[in-house]
C-alpha cells in the first residue's frame, strides 16, 4: 500500500513509450499488389499503391475507369533491399498487410522465387494469404498497362479473378501459403495460375475516359487467367494449358463450384454439362514392386445446354459416358505433360511418401516415373435445369 504511488507512476510511464508504433491509417501507403522482375543489378519491385482519393467510380466509361492507384518502383540487389528502396519514392510508410496479389515475371520465375517467398514468409507485415501469379513477360508491364477495371486496383481485380476462376475450373491461383506448403511436402511440386494481357478491341467512344491510354496510344487491355504454371522447387519449368489445368484441378480436388464440361454430341452438335458436385479419391497399392495409384473421380452432372432437337436428358447414360471420356482425356493430358516436364503438381509422390516413405525414397530420383496411374471417372447426370423440353418441339413440327 505504501508504494502504491510508485506502482502508479511506473504504470504511467507505459503511456509515454506507448505510442511509438502508432501509425495513422492515412499515413500509410497501402500496397494492393506487387510485381517482381529482374534487372541487371538485381531485383525490381513495382508496388501498386492505393490512391487515397475519393474519386470512386469517376469516369466509369463501361470498360475503363480512371486509375485509382499509383505505381512506385524500387531497385536493389535483393528483394528486401528493393522493397526498402521503395521508401526513396513513396512519401508514406509502405504497408504490406493488404497486398493481395504478387505477380512474378516469367524470367524471375524461371530463375527461382526463393527470395520473394522468403520475404513473405519472414516479414511480419506481409501476409501468406497473398495470391501468387506468374506473368508471361515483364511483370511490371502488367501493372503499367492494365488497371483494375471493375475494382479500384489490379490487386483487387486479381483477388476477384482468383475467386471467379473456380467457376470455370480452368485455373487455380495458389496463395503464398499454399505454395510454401507444397514446397515443404516431399513428392509435391507447387503450381499457380498464369496471367496474360490481351489487347481489347479499341472502341474510341468507350476509351475516351481512360485518359492515360489515349495519351500513350496503347490499346485498352484486358487481364486474363490463361494457363497454369508448373514449378520444380521454386523454379518455373513449364505450363499446362486450360484443358490440362483442369485435369490437374480434378485431382487436386479444388473443383467445387459450378463448372461446365463440353461434350461433342451426335452430328457435331454441342452439349454442355454442369458439374454440381464432384468428389475424388486417391488410393495407392503396390503390385510387383510398382506402385499403382488409382484416381477415382465421381461427378454429379446437370444438363446445362444442348443444340439437339431431342431432349437429351432422356439419354443420360450416353451423356455420362461422353462426360467420362472428356474428363479422362483432361486427366491424362495433364499427367503426360507433367511427366514430360518431370514435375508432380498432383502430389502423387507425396501420396506414396505418406503410405510408404522407403518406397518413395527409392522412387524419388526418377520421379515422376515408375508408377502406374489408373483413372476411374464416374459421372451421373442428375438434372436438366428447369427446362421441360421447350424450343425443340417447335423445330420438330
Amino acid at each position: 500500500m505504501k508504494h502504491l504511488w510508485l506502482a502508479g507512476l511506473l504504470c504511467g510511464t507505459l503511456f509515454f513509450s506507448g505510442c511509438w508504433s502508432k501509425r495513422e491509417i492515412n499515413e500509410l501507403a497501402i500496397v494492393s499488389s506487387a510485381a517482381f522482375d529482374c534487372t541487371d543489378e538485381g531485383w525490381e519491385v513495382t508496388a501498386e499503391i492505393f490512391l487515397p482519393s475519393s474519386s470512386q467510380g469517376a469516369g466509369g466509361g463501361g470498360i475503363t475507369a480512371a486509375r485509382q492507384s499509383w505505381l512506385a518502383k524500387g531497385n536493389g540487389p535483393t528483394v528486401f533491399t528493393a522493397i526498402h528502396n521503395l521508401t526513396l519514392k513513396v512519401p508514406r510508410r509502405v504497408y504490406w498487410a493488404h497486398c493481395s496479389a504478387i505477380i512474378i515475371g516469367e524470367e524471375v520465375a524461371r530463375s527461382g522465387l526463393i527470395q520473394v517467398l522468403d520475404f513473405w514468409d519472414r516479414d511480419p507485415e506481409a501476409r501468406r494469404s497473398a495470391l501468387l501469379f506468374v506473368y508471361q513477360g515483364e511483370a511490371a508491364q502488367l501493372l503499367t498497362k492494365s488497371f483494375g477495371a471493375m475494382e479500384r486496383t489490379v490487386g483487387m481485380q486479381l483477388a476477384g479473378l482468383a475467386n471467379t476462376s473456380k467457376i470455370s475450373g480452368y485455373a487455380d491461383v495458389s496463395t503464398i501459403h499454399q505454395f510454401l506448403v507444397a514446397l515443404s511436402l516431399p513428392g509435391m511440386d507447387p503450381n499457380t495460375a498464369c496471367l496474360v494481357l490481351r489487347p481489347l478491341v479499341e472502341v474510341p467512344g468507350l476509351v475516351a475516359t481512360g485518359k492515360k491510354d489515349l495519351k500513350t496510344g496503347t490499346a485498352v487491355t484486358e487481364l486474363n487467367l490463361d494457363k497454369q504454371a508448373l514449378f520444380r522447387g521454386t523454379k518455373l519449368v513449364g505450363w499446362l494449358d486450360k484443358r490440362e489445368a483442369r485435369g490437374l484441378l480434378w485431382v487436386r480436388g479444388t473443383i467445387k463450384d459450378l463448372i461446365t464440361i463440353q461434350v461433342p454430341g451426335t452430328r457435331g452438335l454441342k452439349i454442355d454439362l454442369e458439374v454440381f458436385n464432384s468428389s475424388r479419391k486417391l488410393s495407392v497399392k503396390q503390385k510387383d514392386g510398382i506402385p499403382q495409384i488409382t484416381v477415382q473421380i465421381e461427378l454429379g452432372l446437370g444438363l446445362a445446354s444442348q443444340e439437339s432437337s431431342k431432349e437429351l436428358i432422356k439419354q443420360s447414360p450416353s451423356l455420362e459416358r461422353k462426360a467420362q471420356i472428356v474428363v479422362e482425356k483432361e486427366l491424362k493430358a495433364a499427367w503426360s505433360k507433367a511427366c514430360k516436364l518431370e514435375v508432380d503438381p498432383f502430389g502423387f509422390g507425396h501420396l506414396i511418401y505418406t503410405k510408404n516413405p522407403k518406397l518413395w525414397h527409392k522412387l524419388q530420383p526418377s520421379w515422376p516415373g515408375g508408377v502406374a496411374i489408373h483413372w476411374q471417372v464416374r459421372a451421373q447426370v442428375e438434372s436438366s435445369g428447369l427446362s421441360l423440353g421447350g424450343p425443340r418441339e417447335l423445330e420438330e413440327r
Partner: protein
Amino acid sequence: MIFPWIKKIPHADLDSLKPEDVLVQLDKEQVVGKLAANVERIRQIMGQPHDLVVRQLKLPQAEVALIYLSGLVDRISIEKILDALLLERPQVEKAGIVLGGNLQKWQQSGMPIGEVSQEQIMGGAIRGLLAGKTILVADNCKVALLLETKKWEERQVSEPEVESAVRGPREGFVENINVNLSLIRRRLRHPNLRVERQIIGDLSNTQVMILYIEGLAPKSVLEELRSRLGRIKLDGVLESNYLEELIADAPFSVFPQVDATERPDRVTAGLLEGRVALLTDGTPFALKLPMVFISYLQAVEDYYQNWILAFWLRLLRLLSLLIALLLPAVYVALTTYHQEMLPTPLAVSLAIQREHVPYPAVVEALAMQIIFEILVEAGLRLPKTLGQAVSIVGALVIGEAAVRAGLISEAMVIVVSATAISSFLFPAYGLSLVIRLLRIPMIILSASLGLFGIFVGIMLILIHLVNLRSFGVPYLTGIAPFVPQSQGDIIMRAPWWKMLRRPKITGYRDPIREKEGLKPGSSVDGREDLKELDAEISQEERLRRK
C-alpha cells in the same frame, strides 16, 4: 407580551449551542405545567417567526393554546379542532364527561383527529411542530398533545421520468415518503412487510425507512444496514445518494453499489426477491440493496413482456454495453495500430476519409466524445425550451460542419453517434454515466497500447468488478460466482412458469417462489378439476368414434 405577569423561567441558553445540539438539549427539557410559560418557551425556541400561529382559547374549565406553523398544516383540520373545542365540547361535558384541563382524557375522547399523541418532552413537541403537527397545551397540565394536521403542497404521483416503460405501471415515487410507502404497501398487502423508521440528519431530521419482508430478507444484510445507518451523523440528507455514499462498501468505486430507482414496482420486485429497500423523505429515488451488476441490464419491463422478446432485448443491451464502452477505443486501435485487421476495402475507405483530417484518430475521438458529453449535460441542465436549440446546434456543428470543414472524418461521426445512442439503452441511468466516464480512459489506453491496451482496460474493470461487494454480496453474482440455479434471470429471462426460485444470494431463506408445473398445457398435475375435464372429453371422443 401576552402574559406579562409571568416571570421568565430560566432555561438553558440555546443561542450559545451549536445547531445540531439544540434538539438534543431540548430533549432534556420537560413541558411545564404553566400554559403561558410553555407558549413563551416555544416562541423563544422557534425565534418568533411570523408563520408560527398561537391560538389561545379560554374554555369554561381550562385555558388551552393551539400552536402550529401555518404553512405546514391543513386549514380544515384546524377548523375541526376548533369546532371540537368550542362547539362540541360543551355537549360532551353535558353528557357527564368532565375533561377539564386533563389532556390525557382529551386524547381519549375529545379530539376528532386520527393521529393524536402525548408529549412530555419539549424536544419532541418541537419536532412534531416542525413536521406539521399542531401542539395543544393546556394550563396546569404537564403534557402537550400533538395533533396530526400536516398538509403541504407536493407533486402528484406521476409517471417516472428516468425509468419509463412502454408496458407496466405508470406510477413513480414522489418526494413524500408516506406516499412512497403507500405505493409499496398497495403492491404488497401482507403483514410481513416491515417498515423501520429512522431519523437521520441533525438539522434536516429526514425520515428514512427500511423496508423488507420478514422471513425473506437475509438477517445479515439487515443487521449490516442498520449498523451502517446508525453510524451516520451529518447535518442533512437531501437525497438518497447522501446515504448511498455513506453506506457503500467501496467508496472509491465509480460503480453504484446500491440500486437507485424511482419505480415502486421495481422496489416491490426487489422486496419479493428478499432484498431490502431504503426510502428517503424528500426524494423520489428509493434505494434497493444488495445490488448486483446485472440488474443494470435488467429493465423492469423485461418481466412485463413476452419472455422471448425480453431475452432478445437483454442481449441487445449487453451488446450495446460493449459498443458504448469499446467502440471508439476499438476504432482508434484499429486505425492507428492494427490496420491489417480491417478488410481491405474498409481500410482504403477509412484512409480516404481520414485523408483530410489534421489530427490523429485519438484526438479526433477524444474531442468528439467530450463535445458530446458537453452537449448531453447542456441538454439536461438547460430549460426544456432551449434544449431543442442545443440539439440543433449540436447536430449541425458536430455532424455536418465539422466533417465539411475537414476537422473530423465521417467514420468518426458514425462511431461517436453509435456509441452515444447505445450508451442510453440501459434501464438504469447510473450505468450510462459510468460507461460514458470509462470510455475516455479506454480510448487513451487503446491509443497508447492498441488492442493490448483495450484488453488491459477490460481486465482492470473486470478485476475491479469481481472485487466489489454490495453488503457482502459479490457484485457479479450469477456470473462470477456462477450460480447455475439463477441463470434464468441473468442474461436470459426465463418464462414466468419457469421462474421457480428466488435469487440464491438474497432469497435463500425461502428459495421457492412458485409452484412447479405451471406451464400452460403441459401438465394437469394437482388440478383435479382439469383432470376430470380431461377424462370427460376423452370419453366423449371415444363415444363419438364408435
